[in-house]
């Protein structure tokens, strides 16, 4: 772990043990997060990106279980540390915001209660100070009438307000790392732009590190510093955002980039990658992408590709580069 690395994930595997067998939702993810950067985890639905970030804080519920791997933060392995130590980090040093703010807030408690609760559990005792800080944060999120919102119940706020209140809540204990799990998927385009703007400002102003889970390469280009592409529960490519977009290595990443609408050409149909995401209960042997890969070789069907370094800021897991 270098000085600038704040979080390091090694060989993370999270399986769900169901009657039909083990669902390998996350099957070997490695990445590191640098101080003050925005790392995007990119992949299609069902590739394991959400489970990955839930695993970082051991939030995966049964029948899911982290079967191997380490998550190093501040000399603590979050996968193996005590519950008590982990609770201090959850919501404290590492905070999380979720996809659907509608269901992520408890419907029967006020926004204020829910924000204050987090601050209290992490050691703020003075109720008035807690409230002042909470309302200040709501104001910082451009929420109109923050005093009223503090005393409101979630159902009284619009979706965009809830999502911003959720970000305010996550910031209430001044986290070092903010994990955002598709926070813009459930909101409309204008709110999406506002939220991305807020997150970007936070990163710049507070020097916070950001892990941003998304399937939207537009967002990656917008706020990401580096991107980690995930496929079939595995890391397949990691690079700076400009390299991912301008010089993708893995055939899957190339496919993703090709899917982006391009105004410079006249093609009427968007490109797509043939086939569907692999069934995590029955992952293909070898490289998980080989059944859909146009450049598939014999070795791809049997051997999981190792990480290959292309440049200082670019690694790829593909036999084409082996």
């Amino acid at each position, binding site marked *: 772990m270098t000085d600038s690395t704040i979080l390091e994930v090694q060989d993370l595997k999270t399986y769900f043990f169901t009657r039909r067998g083990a669902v390998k939702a996350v099957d070997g993810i490695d990445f590191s997060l640098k101080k003050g950067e925005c790392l995007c985890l990119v992949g299609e639905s069902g590739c394991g990106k959400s489970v990955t970030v*839930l695993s970082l*804080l051991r*939030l995966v*519920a049964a029948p899911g279980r982290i079967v191997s791997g380490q998550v190093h933060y501040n000399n603590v392995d979050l996968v193996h540390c005590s*519950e008590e130590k982990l*609770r*201090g*980090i*959850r*919501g*404290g040093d590492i*905070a*999380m915001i*979720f996809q*659907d703010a509608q*269901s*992520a*807030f*408890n*419907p*029967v*408690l*006020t926004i204020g209660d829910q924000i204050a*609760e*987090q601050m209290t*559990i*992490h050691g703020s005792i003075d109720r008035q100070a807690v409230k002042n800080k909470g309302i200040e944060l709501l104001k910082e999120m451009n929420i109109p009438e923050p005093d009223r919102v503090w*005393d409101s*119940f979630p*159902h009284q706020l619009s979706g965009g307000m809830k999502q911003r209140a959720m970000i305010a*809540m996550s910031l209430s204990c001044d986290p070092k790392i903010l994990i955002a799990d598709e926070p813009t998927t459930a909101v409309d385009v204008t709110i999406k732009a506002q939220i991305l703007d807020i997150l970007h400002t936070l990163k710049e102003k507070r020097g916070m590190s950001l892990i941003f889970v998304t399937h939207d390469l537009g967002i990656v280009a917008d706020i990401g510093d580096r991107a980690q592409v995930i496929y079939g529960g595995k890391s397949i490519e990691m690079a700076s955002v400009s390299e991912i977009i301008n010089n993708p290595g893995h055939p899957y990443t190339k496919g993703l980039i090709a899917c982006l609408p391009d105004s410079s050409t006249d093609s009427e149909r968007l490109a797509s990658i043939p086939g569907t995401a692999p069934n995590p209960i029955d992952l293909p042997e070898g490289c998980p992408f080989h059944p859909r890969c146009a450049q598939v070789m014999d070795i791809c069907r049997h051997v999981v590709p190792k990480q290959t370094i292309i440049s200082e800021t670019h690694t790829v897991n593909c036999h084409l580069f082996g």
Partner: protein
Amino acid sequence: MRKSWLQGYILKRLLYAVIIAWGIVTITFILIRIGPNSPADKYLANIAARGQDVAQVTAAIESRYGLDKPIIVQYGDYLMHLAQGDLGWSFSTSMPVIDLIGKHWIYSFQLIFLSSLLAAIIGILLGMYSAVKQYSKIDYIISTFSFAGISIPNFWLGVMLILLFSVKLGWFKVFYDTTLPLLSLENLKALVLPVFTLGTGMVAGYVRYTRSAMLDNLRKAFVTTARAKGLPERTVIGKHVFRNAMLPLVTIIMFDLGSIVFGGAYLTEIIFGIPGLGQISFNAVFANDYPVVIAITLIGTFLALLVNLITDIAYTYFDPRIRYE
């Protein structure tokens, strides 16, 4: 948030309650008076033994209580008195109905209060535990017992308990001892079997409802949020999940209070010889003591309506999304 609309709502509901109570009184009054029996019937054996004219004495008794007037006039008289808070005169016990109820309600109250309180506490705690440890051995054991508890009728359970603990083992008296002071350990001991009889079915119900209401909410996204905030598991379960599970539970508990509890208490009182409202109402039916029967039915009605109103108000506190117009 201020709930200014709640006041108007309560007033409206109370008005409805009066109308419903009037309907119940009318139906009970008519049903009970179209029967062929007379409160004078119980004197008949004595009268005949003394060689008096049965028809003449019956007429005298009926005339004394106003039972010879046309039924519509009697009904009007009854409503007039009722409106002034007069529940009438109990023929069989020779005292005002209000005094009779004043003497006996406490026996019903102690039984219902203790059973409901204990059942709610035990049932909810077991149900929460069962839900949190879903599919564990203890969950299976609790579920099995609660299924049995729901299936056993309490009149049977009461008799079996008396057979085992009173007759065979001699731990408790067979009948409830009314000479005991109410606030004494002996009285509490005398209530063990009745409370157990009445409470078992309730505990079983609460366990099942709590378990399913908790399970419904345990998988919700806000639970993950609560954990991600760093809250300890007991706060996540006890505050976040339970507050959401409360809503269906309040409905069930209050509904039980109206039906199972009052109905069950009636039977339990009769089995154990507890002189509560169930017992006196039961005796009144056999003595053709109309005013007592109507009065106790009316009390039951008012309690049920009151409980419903409390439930509706409780909803607004447990779930802020609910409001009544």
